[in-house]
């Protein structure tokens, strides 16, 4: 099956064909550039997270010093006492972070559509503007990043069109194809051996780059291996498709035309149509459920009586029934009002759940379309391995919600139990807040 001389012949042809050689070199440079850009983004995110952590630690140190210095609050705000859990938590804004995956240099995915750090306060939610997206140039977002996944998934097929379009086509153009039959005995064997050279060239080049990033970022793990498998399956499918086009066409022009048509159909038209269809079925959400919870319903909380707030909080946190404040004969206006943000959070959770369900329905539709829109499957799988897909950010939002819940639970239980914090208990709070 393997004919070394055909493969060597192809190598010579490749070296001598300037258009093909330069295209490949250009692609190689683009891949290198994309990985360097990916590393830059990765390092930028790590650096930003470190800076935010530094500022966060400064704030925590300030509060800790109030405990140590027994001042318990800022000089110009005498009413603040951080021994009270309410003030301790209000003066300790921590952050939730989405630490970038070490494989981020291989695929930026949807990372630019979301923030990767979020300042948490008692009024935070997972739909705050800094969870939504980092400051970016919108038109640059439309054009996308020169990231490695884009080059492999979208541009590699175009490179292959340039490399493969005249295999067997040129011979047919020159009407010398019968010579191949005489010399080799089979067109298929001849085409496959020529293609093997390119399979070897492309897959070794891509695999080396994938593993290189893994080695540099010390992340040779299951995600990288899954990515390697995914990429190789993708390359194999591309070659099989192009093999049949080459086999069934009768000129270089016809091969190029068919290959480009396949590219247009599966890379532009079908994904575009699936996108349009999913938007028709599930139009962009204006988040009115969340807006209502965040504004109308939250403001309604402010108008509630202390008895109503008391009941609301007991419903959300049944453990409060056995708290110190629950045993008091009079409801403290201050204690129950300090827990208003917890009621607002509860409203937000319910509203956000509806939005997430809407998004999930849209995602299910996108996934159903994978049967005829395989490129989106490869793109989203790739993004999931580099932790830059919608689901990774959904997980990040869930983590944020958990931290908000922890914060509010500490606040409500702490204030209702009339805890008086010392430095040790404050440190225990910190463990739960981070």
């Amino acid at each position: 099956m393997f004919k070394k001389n055909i493969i060597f012949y192809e190598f010579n042809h490749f070296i001598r064909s300037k258009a093909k050689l330069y295209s490949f070199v250009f692609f190689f440079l683009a891949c290198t550039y994309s990985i360097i850009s990916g590393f830059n983004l990765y390092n930028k995110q790590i650096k930003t997270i470190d800076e935010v952590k530094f500022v966060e630690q400064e704030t925590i140190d300030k509060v800790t010093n109030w405990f140590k210095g027994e001042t318990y609050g800022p000089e110009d705000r005498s009413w603040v006492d951080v021994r009270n859990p309410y003030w301790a938590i209000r003066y300790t804004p921590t952050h939730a972070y989405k630490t970038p995956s070490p494989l981020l240099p291989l695929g930026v995915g949807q990372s630019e559509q979301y923030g990767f750090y979020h300042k948490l306060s008692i009024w935070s939610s997972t739909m705050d503007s800094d969870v939504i997206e980092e400051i970016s140039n919108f038109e640059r977002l439309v054009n996308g990043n020169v990231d490695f996944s884009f080059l492999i998934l979208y541009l590699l097929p175009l490179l292959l069109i340039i490399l493969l379009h005249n295999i067997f086509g040129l011979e047919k153009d020159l009407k010398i194809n019968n010579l191949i039959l005489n010399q080799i005995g089979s067109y298929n064997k001849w085409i496959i051996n020529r293609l093997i050279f390119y399979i070897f060239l492309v897959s070794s080049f891509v695999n080396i780059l994938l593993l290189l990033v893994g080695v540099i970022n010390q992340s040779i793990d299951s995600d990288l291996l899954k990515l390697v498998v995914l990429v190789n399956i993708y390359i194999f499918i591309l070659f099989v498709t192009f093999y049949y086009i080459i086999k069934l066409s009768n000129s270089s022009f016809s091969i190029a035309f068919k290959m480009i048509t396949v590219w247009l159909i599966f890379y532009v038209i079908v994904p575009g149509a699936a996108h349009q269809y999913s938007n028709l079925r599930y139009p962009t959400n204006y988040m009115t459920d969340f807006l209502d919870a965040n504004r109308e319903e939250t403001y309604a909380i402010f108008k509630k009586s202390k008895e109503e707030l008391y009941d609301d909080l007991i419903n959300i946190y049944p453990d409060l029934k056995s708290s110190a404040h629950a045993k008091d004969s009079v409801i403290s206006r201050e204690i129950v009002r300090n827990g208003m943000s917890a009621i607002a959070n509860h409203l937000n959770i319910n509203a956000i759940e509806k939005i997430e369900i809407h998004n999930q329905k849209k995602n299910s539709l996108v996934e159903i379309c994978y049967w005829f829109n395989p490129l989106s499957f490869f793109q989203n799988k790739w993004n999931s391995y580099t932790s830059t897909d919608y689901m990774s950010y959904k997980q990040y939002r869930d983590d944020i919600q958990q931290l908000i819940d922890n914060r509010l639970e500490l606040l409500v239980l702490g204030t209702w139990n009339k805890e008086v914090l010392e430095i040790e208990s404050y440190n225990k709070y910190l463990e739960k807040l981070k």
Partner: protein
Amino acid sequence: MKDIFLNEFKGYFRNKLFFSLGVFFFFFLSIVTYFSILQNEEQLVAQKDAHEHIRAQWDDMEASNPHSAAHYGTYAFKPLSVLNSIDDGVNSVTGNVLRLEGHRQNDIAFSESSQSLVVSKFGKLKPALVLQFIIPLLLIFLSFSSYTSERSSGRLKLLLVQGLSLRKIVFAKSITIWFIGLIFLTTTIIVQLIFVDSGLNEDVLSRLIYLLISFSTYYFILVSLTISLSVLFNNSTTSLSLIILIWVLWTIFLPTIASNTSEKLIPLPTRAEFKEAMLEDRSKGIDGHNPRGERRDALEKETLEKYNVENLSDLPINFSGILMQEDEEYGNMVWDKHFGSLYEKLELQKKSYQLSGVINPFAAVQSLSMAYSGTDMYHHLHFLKETKNYRRIFIKTLNDEYAFGGSKTGERGWKASNEFFRSVKDFSYTSPSFKSFYKKYLTDIIILLLWLFISFSLVFYSTKKAKIDV
């Protein structure tokens, strides 16, 4: 030349493959345009419903303190232009909702692309996608085969022997294929005009005409370039490889490279840096809720002197409202400084991207397509500036009511009536007319014209250099 053109055109109609392709693209474009209009109208209904829902909440607000109402705030929903159905530009990546409230200038949030998995890298199947990616490729292949088939079949020699000049032949072929592109363009425009229910006005019509002119110019550039390269290179494989490479570079690669480079040349701050800088500048002003500070003392003194009274309690107005507005004015200054600088950077990035049209005419046509559709960054920034202006009027109206509406200093429980809240003007956005915006796109227009000149020159050059033995 007219005869060659007519002959070529008839030839295409007689060719079954081409005729089928032509019919297919005619229906394909019509369907794509129709569904885009449908999707746009659905989105517009959703946007209108959300807007009315939020306004109804405002109108139903019971008597409240105006400053509480400022905190309660309102929302601005980004409306879609009628021509968003042709090219949705940046709309899928920008947010759609902006909260307008006291003390804070928020960011627009909830972009479409953050609401689901990735579906398509090149966007929805809208006319712009077909006109920018698919039709050009079809024209490239038609142009390539149009010349090389004549050459390989020997017909070219025959035509030259009959006394026709190569230049005339090339021009006639270019115009024929360009005309086919024009038919597809016109189809899109006509379907758009037929099915759009409302919103068609003089500005929209002029935008559609400019869109037609710009795309047809781009198509002529592509067609003449392809035929010229086919003339220059005797080896059809080389010329086809080169043309495909140019298409890939122009359409896929260079736009990404150019926009990434412009962001590297003019870097934007991270959100953390941006917020930190704003917060620092903001802290130097008056805190409306903080009863201390030098600036506050100065304002108090000034107000007391103005009303010729000794104490705040003697004022016939509510000093808290004045204080809140002063806080806003300072915040506006800070906002202008930081967001002004950010918007300037974004505009500089856009300008540097537009310059990339010198090596890539696709960048110019892509930029113009978004511009005519009212969906590019300039239009988006215009929307943001309008929301900013509205927010200032909105908050000032509430603060003025708090200060001068009948309450006195210290009356925190004072409430403005529901009639007052109903009288506060709602946010309404009108997209700028293209006339008022055209200067921003002069670079793109000039570059496209420059490329048109280059393509004409290339036809002249290639036909002069071509060696055909007759």
